[in-house]
């Protein structure tokens, strides 16, 4: 049943991504409603799939990396829907739904090849949840950054095309970027701390410098500097957008690090 819901979700997200993509290229506003409807449908079946995972027969199993990616995808859509219903910026879907889809496809492709995290303590659940929430923050910041750079480019080059008319105001994107990092950063910090605690319990050392941990720390330091720069010396607007786009590479590399991690090493 959970698997069926998962497949339905996947199909609906693919449809929503295609629909949102064509929405961003076409003058008509009509597609926004269709796209949004399909996304909400996908989100509903995704929620059912996740609830079943939590309470179903496999609920005692520790969270796998695949679960984490599925949760990440669900959170991205949730954040999108919240922003969409508050600010009515449909074009956000053209960027966020494809990202959620990539995350979900990875979740579907990976389960057998990646070993589940070793159940050390309940802290593992906290570690996974918090890290993923932090990742969601940085994903939204990344999307806001990309949208900012596109709109900045369009305004500078005076290309008043369809995308220009659909993208929101620059300061809104900058604000979204800032809020996402401000929320994402403390969550990632807690995620790393709980991860280190689990590692200490199972291995006796906080850090083992495997690719995942290395990239996580590099990412953490990077975003720390970005946040500090914004608050102190005015790294906002275009520079902030560039930095968050670059920083997102660190997030991806960390996730790849987790995926590539051999069964021998622990989180």
């Amino acid at each position, binding site marked *: 049943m959970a698997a069926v819901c998962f497949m339905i979700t996947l199909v609906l997200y693919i449809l929503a991504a295609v629909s949102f993509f064509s929405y961003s290229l076409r003058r008509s506003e009509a597609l926004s409603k269709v796209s949004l409807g399909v996304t909400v449908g996908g989100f509903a079946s995704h929620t059912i799939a996740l609830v079943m995972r939590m309470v179903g027969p496999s609920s005692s199993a520790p969270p796998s990396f695949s679960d984490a990616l599925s949760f990440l995808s669900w959170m991205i859509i949730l954040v999108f829907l919240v922003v969409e219903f508050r600010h009515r910026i449909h074009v956000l879907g053209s960027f966020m739904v494809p990202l959620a889809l990539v995350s979900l496809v990875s979740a579907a492709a990976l389960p057998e090849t990646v070993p589940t995290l070793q159940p050390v303590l309940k802290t593992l659940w906290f570690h996974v949840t918090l890290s993923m929430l932090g990742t969601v923050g940085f994903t939204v910041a990344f999307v806001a950054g990309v949208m900012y750079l596109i709109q900045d480019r369009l305004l500078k080059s005076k290309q008043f095309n369809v995308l220009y008319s659909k993208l929101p105001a620059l300061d809104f994107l*900058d604000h979204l970027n800032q809020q996402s990092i401000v929320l994402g950063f403390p969550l990632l910090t807690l995620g790393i701390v709980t991860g280190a605690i689990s590692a200490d319990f199972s291995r006796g050392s906080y850090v083992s410098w495997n690719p995942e941990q290395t990239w996580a720390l590099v990412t953490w330091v990077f975003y720390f500097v970005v946040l500090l720069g914004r608050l102190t010396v*005015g790294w*906002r*607007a*275009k520079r902030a957008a560039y930095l968050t786009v670059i920083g997102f590479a660190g997030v991806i590399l960390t996730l790849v690090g987790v995926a590539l991690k051999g069964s021998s090493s622990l989180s």
Partner: protein
Amino acid sequence: MHLIVVGLSHKTAPVEIREQLAVPESRLGEALTRLCSYPGIKEGILLSTCNRVEVYSVVDDVDTGCGRIQEFLADTHLSLSSEQLTPHLYWHTGDRAIAHLFRVAASLDSMIIGESQILGQLKDAFEVALAHKTTGVIMNKVVKKAISVAKRVRTETKISEMAVSVSYAAVELAKKIFSNLHEKTVLLIGAGEMAKLAARHLLAHGVGHVRITTRTPQHAVDLAAKFGGTAVPFDQFKDDMASADIVLVSTGASHYLVGAEDVHRAVTERMNRPMFLIDISVPRNIDPAVRHVDNAFLFDIDDLKQRVEQNRAERMREAEKAERMVLEEVTTLLDWMKSLEVTPTIVALRNRVDDIKRAEVEKVLGRLGHLSHQDRELVEGLAASIVNKLIHRTMVTLKTEVNSSNGPAFVEAARRFFHLDRPSPFSRESRDDAEQPRGLDEPPEEFQSEEPAQKPSMRKQAR
């Protein structure tokens, strides 16, 4: 009974003619009364704006009516002779007159397509005509339809959404940089007309503060008082730029007043908060090199004009959709108008009562099978004579009122009393599936539902 429009607009007449012919609102009522005093003119409405003067009228005969309205227009302004006026006039009748009114109301014929003023002007003209009782059934229906068509066009197309003036385009661009203009500050350097207009638009869209600087200090103080802003000394405006989110420049200076360095410094001081600079001056007053400064967005007059052109093109595309809607609506209105012609109404009435008569006679004769052939004819004759006597006065009234101004009202009334716009429940075709034919004493349910929709028009007529 014909609907005609005679008039002139920005497309056919220069402003010198239009301004002479324009009727001020205070004299509109008097003019309308005069219009309807011409023989052969049944109903009239006068639409007078700065871009058009048009008379919509219901007349007995197209040619004489047209002549009378031309006479009326020439009489409106004594210094204008018929010969001067005629070359600028256009006239349409029937469906083309209706289509013209719909296009005017929907702002498809306006100088700036999609502007919204014209609809208000049409409503006002209609109000005046109603107050002076110069409209009747046809005009009321046609104008109300025109107003509803205009509303439909506005909601179903994007014809009036985009900025088509330079000063408004500035506001549109500002909204792509700042999502909320409240709490934003605009700095006005110099005070060209277009800059003032743009500043006014920005204020209307919520900009919080205005700071003004001009070469003549007193001028800045005066303007500041007018806009509710603050005057800034001209030699200090560069230091003041960092506090401005929007900088609007239009001076007569022949050199760059604002250089890339100045803007760079302002942006740095603003901790990289974006800045929106608009240069409406020709020659330009802001160094184009500002384009290379991050987080500063400079637009000159050509950029704004380009935006306006694009929006115009977009409006044209929307206008095509609107034209199709107008055609559709004209067809529905024409159907209604056709129903108001007397002859088809009389034929329909005759058929309707014959249907009723036949149905009732057949029902009775079915039960009186023992009657002789002669008796049957007697029964049929009785029914026929009752029916004929009953509708006789109606028929006569319809025929005699054809040419009176109340003619259409009588036709409309007859159609509604006898339900002529609905298929007969007694006709042979529908009887086969109808189990129990309904008599006139049990009105179909739709009858009630039709009433409220029609009431307002009747009430307004009575006023």
